[in-house]
């Protein structure tokens, strides 16, 4: 929705906008002495003033678009990153979310004082009150913006860590030239299965592995979804030119699978990882000779 078209800002909003444009420098100067700016911009006060001016400009733009209540207003875009950095810096310094929020709240009174002083002396009480209210709303929205970015930073961190955890939990092990194995431990949900599939297929390419063993000894239950994921992985590996063997289907799981009518189709399965390795070595034409009993070949 084009913001200009909405630019029918009411009189108080226009007043606040003009005030912000006019007094940007002074507001920024006052903010530079507030704890939030002082704590974040420790090197130079000028830097704090510059940052403050950018925020005032953004607020003026938001007021110009008559979106003082909208944290998503385009006017905030330019300073969103800077605000996020400021919020993050205070969090790192050990402040709780509530403390950061009150530091932000402390930015309002100096602006309000300037505004009231700036309004003509003969201005109607009603008008003064509406202007102050508009400014308060705008400053409240600014707080929401900072809190939002802080939260989304946190969420992004959680997302990154979750993904890292998934990758860490999925080691692909080279067992032999051309043979890789993934011991799966824990529940296989959709996100995890996707990571397993991608990691395994990547390592098939890297290792030029003609055989891949998916060991599910550590998977507590196999339902239709897990079976489906296993089948998909096997099918994708086959398209790339590798054969997958599923090993470690415990008797209890085998029973459940039969009960559920789950069929792994043409997938080669073995009871244990060792059995699977023996099968693959045999396929590759590799014999295992036990020293001493010269010539006896396993499996």
């Amino acid at each position, binding site marked *: 929705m084009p913001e200009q078209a909405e630019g029918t800002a009411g009189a108080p909003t226009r007043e606040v906008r003009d005030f912000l444009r006019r007094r940007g420098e002074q507001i920024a100067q006052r903010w530079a002495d507030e704890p939030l700016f002082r704590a974040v911009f420790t090197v130079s006060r000028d830097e704090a003033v510059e940052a403050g001016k950018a925020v005032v400009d953004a607020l003026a733009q938001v007021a110009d678009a008559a979106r003082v209540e909208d944290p998503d207003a385009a006017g905030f875009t330019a300073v969103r990153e800077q605000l996020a950095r400021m919020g993050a810096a205070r969090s790192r310094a050990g402040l709780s979310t509530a403390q950061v929020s009150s530091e932000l709240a402390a930015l309002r009174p100096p602006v309000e004082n300037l505004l009231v002083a700036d309004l003509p002396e003969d201005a109607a009480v009603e008008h003064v009150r509406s202007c102050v209210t508009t400014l308060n709303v705008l400053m409240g929205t600014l707080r929401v913006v900072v809190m939002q970015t802080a939260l989304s930073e946190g969420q992004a961190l959680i997302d990154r860590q979750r993904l890292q955890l998934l990758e860490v939990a999925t080691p692909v092990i080279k067992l032999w030239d051309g043979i890789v194995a993934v011991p799966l431990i824990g529940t296989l949900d959709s996100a995890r299965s996707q990571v397993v599939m991608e990691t395994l*297929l990547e390592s*098939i390419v890297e290792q*030029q592995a*003609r055989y891949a063993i998916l060991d599910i000894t550590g998977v507590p239950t196999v339902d239709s979804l897990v079976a489906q994921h296993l089948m*998909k992985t096997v099918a*994708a590996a086959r*398209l*790339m*030119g590798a054969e997958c063997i599923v090993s470690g289907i415990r008797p209890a799981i085998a029973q459940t699978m039969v009960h559920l009518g789950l069929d792994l189709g043409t997938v080669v399965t073995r009871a244990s990882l060792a059995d699977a390795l023996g099968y693959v070595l045999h396929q590759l034409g590799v014999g295992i000779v036990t020293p001493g009993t010269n010539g006896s070949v396993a499996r």
Partner: protein
Amino acid sequence: MLRLGEVLLVTLQGDLHDSTAQQLQEDLAETIVRSGATGVIIDVSGVEIVDSFLGRILAEIAGQTGLLAARTVLVGMRPAVAITLVELGLTLPGVHTALSTDVAMEVLRQQAPSSRFGGLGQERL
């Protein structure tokens, strides 16, 4: 299209037009008949996407070369492409696959029509 003894090597690259893929299918059949090749290796390691149209063409090439007493091996499919094809429901059951051209050559040598694994020996009778 490159000829290595009894084997034709086809390298597909980038984003293929539908018409290019269809043309390849026709050309390949002709070349097999003309050259008497017994194996076709299609290298798809440079292909970023295989949709159901190209997937169908690849499956048809495999089927068609089988009828012409040759064997097709699909080589070097990327993981992302393989995952997508499986989600699409296209697992190309009749197509042989290999990780690399070297392995494909080996497969073609081992499973030559005379081999008991080939099954093509019977078709030739």
